[in-house]
C-alpha cells in the first residue's frame, strides 16, 4: 500500500500544468527524434539537456521532459523502420524485419498502429516493473559500503563491455578512456591538480555534458558529412492507409506483447544491456516460440509487436538501476544520469528517501507520458511521417547549431565549444574504429565517485587494498562482473554479430 500512496503523491506532483506541458513537449520531440534516422534517444536527450537548463527547470520537471523524450524516441523509432526500412534509432532495427514487409503488403497503417499498441504495453508493464523492483533494489543497495560500490561500478563497466561491442578490448579501452578523462581536474580529496597542464579551464574538470553532446551529437554530424547523405527519404513509400489494427490482429499478438514486455524489462534492468538488446532478444525468442509456419521476416504482425514491446519495456527497465543504484545500464540512461548529477541530485538509494518527490513524480509522469504517446502515435502518426521528409541537409546543421548553443548557453565560454569539437572528432574516429561510445560517457560520469569509493574503502581499512574483496556482497558483485565480462567472450560473438548485422552506418550509437 505504501507504494500506491507514494504513487498517488507522485501524480499530485506530475499533474501540474507545467509538468503536463513538458511531458507533452517531450513526447512530441522524442517521437520526432526517434523517427528521424540519425537522431536516436541518447543524442536526442543530449541536445535537449541545455534546453532544460535554460528554461530554469527544477529536477522533477527536467526529468519529466527528458524521460518523455526517452520514451517518445522508443515509440518514434518504429516509424521509419516500418515505412522506409531504415531504423530511426538502434532499438528499432529489429522492427524493420517484419514491419517493412508488412508495409510493402499495403499494411503500413496496421503495422504502425499495432506497433504503437505494443510500445504502449511494453512501456506500461515496464513502468509497473520499475515501481515494484526499484524499491527492492534500494533495500539491497542500502547494505552497500564503499567497497561494494566500487565493485558495482566495476560490474557496470565490465558487463557493459560484454554487450556493447563486438570487441571486449575496445569496450575496456573506452571505459578506461572515460575514467581517465574523469580524473582531469583538481583532486577532490587532496586538492592537487591532476592532468591540467596549467590550463585554468581544466581545474574544474571536463564538463561531462560537453563530452556527451560532442561525442553523440557532433560525431553524428561528421558521419553525415563524410557520407554526404544530405537527401531525404523517398516520399512515394510513405503511404499509410488504414490506421487501426483489426481486433483479431491485436488479439493474436497479445500473448506475444505480454511475454516480450517482461523479457524486455528484464533485459533492460541488466546492467549494460539497454533497449537494443531488449528488442533483439524479444524478437529472437518470439521467433523461436511461435513462428511455426516460418512467417517471421515476411510481415508477421507478431514480429512487429515483439521488438516494439521489448524495446519500450527495456527502456523502462533501464531506469531501474539508474534510479536505484545510480549506475545506468544504457547510453540514454547514462545521459539522464548526467542530467541528475548536473542538478546536484545523486541517484541511488538515498534518492528514494531524500527526494521521493523526484522519483515518484517521475514515475507518475512516465505513466502520463505513455498515454500521451499512445494518443499521439496512432491517430497522429501521419504528422510524424511528414516530418520524416525533412532532409538531413537541413536537419544536421540545426542539430550542430543547437548543440553549440546549448553548451555555450551553459558555460558561456569558447573553450568548452572547442572541447566539444574535440570530442566530436574523437567520437567520429572511435565510431569508425568500432569503439563503443557509451562506456566513455559512463566513465566520465562515474569516474569521480568510483575513485572516491575506492579511496574511502581503502582509507577506512587503513590502507589495506584487500578490503575491496572482503565482504560476501562485494565478492558476489565481483563474481558477476567477471562472469559478465568473460561469458560474452565465448557466447557473445555470435549474438552480437547477428545483432550488429542489421545496424546501419548512421544512427549507430548503441542505446
Amino acid at each position: 500500500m505504501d507504494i500506491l500512496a507514494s504513487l498517488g503523491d507522485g501524480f499530485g506532483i506530475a499533474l501540474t500544468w507545467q509538468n503536463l506541458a513538458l511531458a507533452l513537449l517531450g513526447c512530441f520531440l522524442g517521437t520526432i527524434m526517434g523517427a528521424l534516422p540519425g537522431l536516436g534517444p541518447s543524442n536526442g536527450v543530449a541536445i535537449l539537456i541545455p534546453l532544460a537548463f535554460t528554461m530554469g527547470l527544477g529536477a522533477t520537471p527536467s526529468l519529466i521532459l527528458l524521460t518523455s523524450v526517452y520514451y517518445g524516441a522508443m515509440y518514434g523509432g518504429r516509424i521509419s523502420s516500418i515505412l522506409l526500412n531504415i531504423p530511426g534509432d538502434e532499438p528499432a532495427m529489429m522492427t524493420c524485419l517484419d514491419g517493412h514487409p508488412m508495409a510493402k503488403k499495403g499494411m503500413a497503417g496496421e503495422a504502425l498502429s499495432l506497433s504503437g499498441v505494443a510500445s504502449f504495453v511494453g512501456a506500461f508493464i515496464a513502468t509497473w516493473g520499475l515501481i515494484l523492483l526499484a524499491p527492492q533494489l534500494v533495500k539491497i543497495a542500502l547494505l552497500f559500503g564503499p567497497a561494494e560500490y566500487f565493485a558495482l561500478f566495476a560490474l557496470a563497466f565490465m558487463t557493459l563491455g560484454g554487450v556493447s561491442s563486438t570487441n571486449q578490448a575496445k569496450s575496456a579501452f573506452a571505459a578506461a578512456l572515460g575514467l581517465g578523462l574523469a580524473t582531469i581536474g583538481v583532486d577532490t580529496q587532496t586538492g592537487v591538480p591532476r592532468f591540467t597542464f596549467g590550463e585554468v579551464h581544466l581545474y574544474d574538470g571536463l564538463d561531462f555534458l560537453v563530452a556527451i553532446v560532442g561525442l553523440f551529437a557532433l560525431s553524428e554530424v561528421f558521419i553525415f558529412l563524410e557520407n554526404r547523405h544530405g537527401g531525404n527519404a523517398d516520399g512515394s513509400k510513405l503511404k499509410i492507409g488504414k490506421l487501426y489494427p483489426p481486433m483479431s490482429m491485436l488479439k493474436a499478438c497479445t500473448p506475444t506483447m505480454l511475454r516480450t514486455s517482461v523479457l524486455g524489462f528484464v533485459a533492460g534492468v541488466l546492467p549494460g544491456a539497454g533497449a537494443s538488446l531488449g528488442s533483439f532478444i524479444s524478437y529472437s525468442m518470439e521467433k523461436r516460440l511461435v513462428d511455426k509456419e516460418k512467417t517471421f521476416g515476411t510481415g508477421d504482425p507478431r514480429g512487429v509487436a515483439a521488438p516494439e514491446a521489448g524495446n519500450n519495456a527495456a527502456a523502462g527497465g533501464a531506469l531501474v538501476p539508474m534510479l536505484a543504484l545510480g549506475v545506468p545500464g544504457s547510453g540514454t540512461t547514462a545521459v539522464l544520469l548526467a542530467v541528475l548529477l548536473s542538478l546536484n541530485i545523486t541517484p541511488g538509494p538515498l534518492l528514494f528517501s531524500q527526494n521521493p518527490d523526484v522519483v515518484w513524480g517521475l514515475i507518475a509522469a512516465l505513466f502520463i507520458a505513455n498515454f500521451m504517446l499512445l494518443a499521439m502515435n496512432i491517430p497522429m502518426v501521419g504528422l510524424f511521417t511528414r516530418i520524416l521528409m525533412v532532409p538531413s541537409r537541413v536537419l544536421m546543421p540545426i542539430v550542430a547549431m543547437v548543440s553549440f548553443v546549448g553548451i555555450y548557453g551553459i558555460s558561456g565560454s569558447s573553450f568548452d565549444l572547442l572541447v566539444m569539437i574535440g570530442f566530436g572528432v574523437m567520437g567520429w574516429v572511435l565510431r569508425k574504429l568500432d569503439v563503443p561510445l557509451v562506456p566513455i560517457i559512463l566513465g566520465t560520469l562515474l569516474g569521480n565517485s568510483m575513485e572516491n569509493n575506492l579511496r574511502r574503502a581503502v582509507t577506512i581499512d587503513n590502507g589495506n587494498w584487500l578490503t575491496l574483496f572482503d565482504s560476501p556482497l562485494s565478492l558476489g558483485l565481483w563474481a558477476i562482473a567477471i562472469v559478465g565480462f568473460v561469458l560474452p567472450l565465448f557466447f557473445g560473438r555470435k549474438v552480437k554479430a547477428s545483432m550488429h548485422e542489421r545496424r546501419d552506418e548512421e544512427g549507430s550509437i548503441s542505446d
Partner: protein
Amino acid sequence: MSDRIFGVVGILLAIAFAVSALAIEESFLSDAVGPKAFPLIIAAVLGLSSAAIALRPDPEPQWPALGRLVEVGAAVVVMILYAELLPVAGFVIATAFAATYLAWRLGSGLLGSLATGVGTSLGIYVIFHLVLGLSLARGPLGF
C-alpha cells in the same frame, strides 16, 4: 592495420597518462591511497586493452576517401572558427554562416543553404534567446 595503429597509439597514450600521473605532486595531507593510484590503475587497463587491440585487430574499417576526409576536416575548421569568432561576431551572424556552410556541404543548393543557415540562426535566436531568455553571445551589433 588501422587497429594495430590504434592499439599502438593507445599504448602510447597509456604511457603518457601513467607518466603524468607519476608527476602529480602529492600534497602533505593525503589519504591512504593518494591521488596517483587510481590514474595508474586506469593507465594499466588502458595499456592492456590497447595491447589486446593491437595484437588481435578487427577487420579493417571502411575509411572514407581522401576527399571525404578533407570534407570532415574542413567542417572541423569551420566549427573551430565558429567557436572562436562567436563572441566577436555575435551569435546571429556567426551561426548563420556556420549553418549555411554545413547545409551547403551536405548538398543543399546555394539558395537552400542560405535559407537553412539564416532560418536556423534566427529560429534559435527567437526560441532560445527571446522566448527562453538564454544569454547568447552578443556581437558588436547587439545580437
